[in-house]
């Protein structure tokens, strides 16, 4: 009973794959909308805001699940540097999933724009309207989104390395089956 499972709990797996889809969609939506003057810009923006808030809500649920359930351990023969890289990249992933929606919300607030999730649903501004603050937040939102994308690529590469090269059960722990 006390032996840790080889698999993440079904709820943790559901959250992982749902958020994987949402975060990757979000990164593409964000990169696409700021690089377009077409109507794509507008409808992607209308997706970006509610999706961002949904990710913020889910990452909070996920952190609760993460700290209230046991995680499958990493393979004991994993080199120390890979253990450290795994821990650091997960810290970065969680941190950025939490920070990026907050930054997006803050930058709209700082621009003095109404924070609209739809034509009627409005969130309060949580930083004062300030142009210089907007510029800092907006740039941070962009650069950190690129950092998140690179971290996601690294995570993907590492997962496939575990699954296809090391074949050590790490990828299966999130797939939920051997």
């Amino acid at each position, binding site marked *: 009973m006390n*032996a*840790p499972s*080889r698999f993440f709990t079904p709820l943790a797996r559901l959250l992982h794959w749902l958020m994987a889809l949402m975060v*990757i969609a979000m*990164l*593409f939506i964000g*990169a*696409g*909308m*700021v*690089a*377009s*003057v*077409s*109507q*794509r*810009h*507008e409808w992607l923006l209308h997706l970006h805001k509610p999706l961002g808030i949904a990710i913020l809500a889910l990452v909070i649920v996920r952190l609760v699940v993460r700290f209230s359930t046991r995680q*499958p*351990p*990493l*393979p*004991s*023969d994993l080199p120390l540097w890979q253990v450290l890289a795994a821990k650091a990249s997960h810290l970065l992933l969680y941190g950025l999933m939490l920070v990026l929606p907050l930054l997006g919300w803050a930058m709209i607030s700082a*621009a*003095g*724009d*109404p924070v*609209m999730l739809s*034509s*009627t649903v*409005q969130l309060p501004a949580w930083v004062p*309207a*300030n*142009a*210089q603050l*907007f*510029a800092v937040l*907006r*740039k941070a939102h962009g650069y950190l989104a690129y950092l998140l*994308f690179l971290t996601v*690529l690294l995570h*993907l*590469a590492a997962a*496939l*390395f575990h699954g*296809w*090269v*090391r*074949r*050590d*059960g790490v990828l299966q722990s999130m797939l939920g089956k051997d």
Partner: protein
Amino acid sequence: MVDHSSPSRRPLGRASLLLRLAAIGVVVGAVAGAFAYVNGTLDPQRLRPKTLVNALETNNGVHPGYRRNHSKGVCVAGYFESGPAARAYSSAQVFHEARTPVIGRFALPSGNPYAPDSSVPIRSLALQFSQANGQQWRTGMNSMPVFPVGTPEAFYQMLKAGAPDPVTGKPNPASMPAFFASHPEAAPFLAWVKTAKPSASYATESYNGINGFYLINANGQRQAVRWGVVPISQDTKEAAAPAGADFLQQDLEQRLLAGPVRWQLLITLANPADPVDDASKVWAGEHTVLNAGTLVLDSSQPQLSGDCRDINFDPLILPSGIEASNDPLLAARSAAYASSYLRRTGEVSQLHNAVQESKP
């Protein structure tokens, strides 16, 4: 820790290892490549917000902290008093509350903040209506009735036609006529320009929203419209532009000392045949026009310190009850304004130097 690595796992052969590593590279590379396409890196021909803003900077020079277009202007403030006419057409609170506070900005349509007021026959008025429910309506209007072109691509070509020649430092005089010759959609705009003169006052101008929008009422019915404001003051624009480069702001400040200046907000309902999504086309013939209320402006502030400075007058910031049409210029304006706004808000600290520089 329990080692759950599979005991039956056999070492990979060299070829198999390389193949698997290559497969990982392909997967990661495909995702990265798709991303590089979406963000425009692998699609350099795409018209991007920064392409438009760069073109404005090429034509006008870079003036840190200033808007990249309509750079010279003045902040104003006041309120909108709604009348009953638009209430059946739009559920937006601005048409239902007696009074909605407004922050606005008069400007010249040029990217040069030092352009003489008489250098262009066009003036613009941007407004932000702040509804009590927190939603906002922002609109950027111009004194011309139509836009020269109907698409951002054509607008970009027009900016390129006005770009300074690297040798002479001035636009090639043949470029703009050549542009208009290949863009017959600009005919209504050109016909208007022929009769237009630089006005002596911001207060005597009409300002047109130009792009089409939809009013949505409480039953969800949609009505295509264009809107604009028409001055109520009897003092119409008989006066020719006076000498000097900066008469518009002084004129406005003097008028405001004597009392508020007023406009009627007129909303033109589209007829079935009207081109809603093409800002270069006139809506000809008889139209129903709603007098939605009165815009009252009662104070002004210099633009470098005024409340309008940090507002991005994005025409797609709309309250519930007003929706954008499919006019491609609206999305392009929204996208390009965001790019300009990011550039200039990052340069606010340089505005102080700019003020010093502009003073002889």
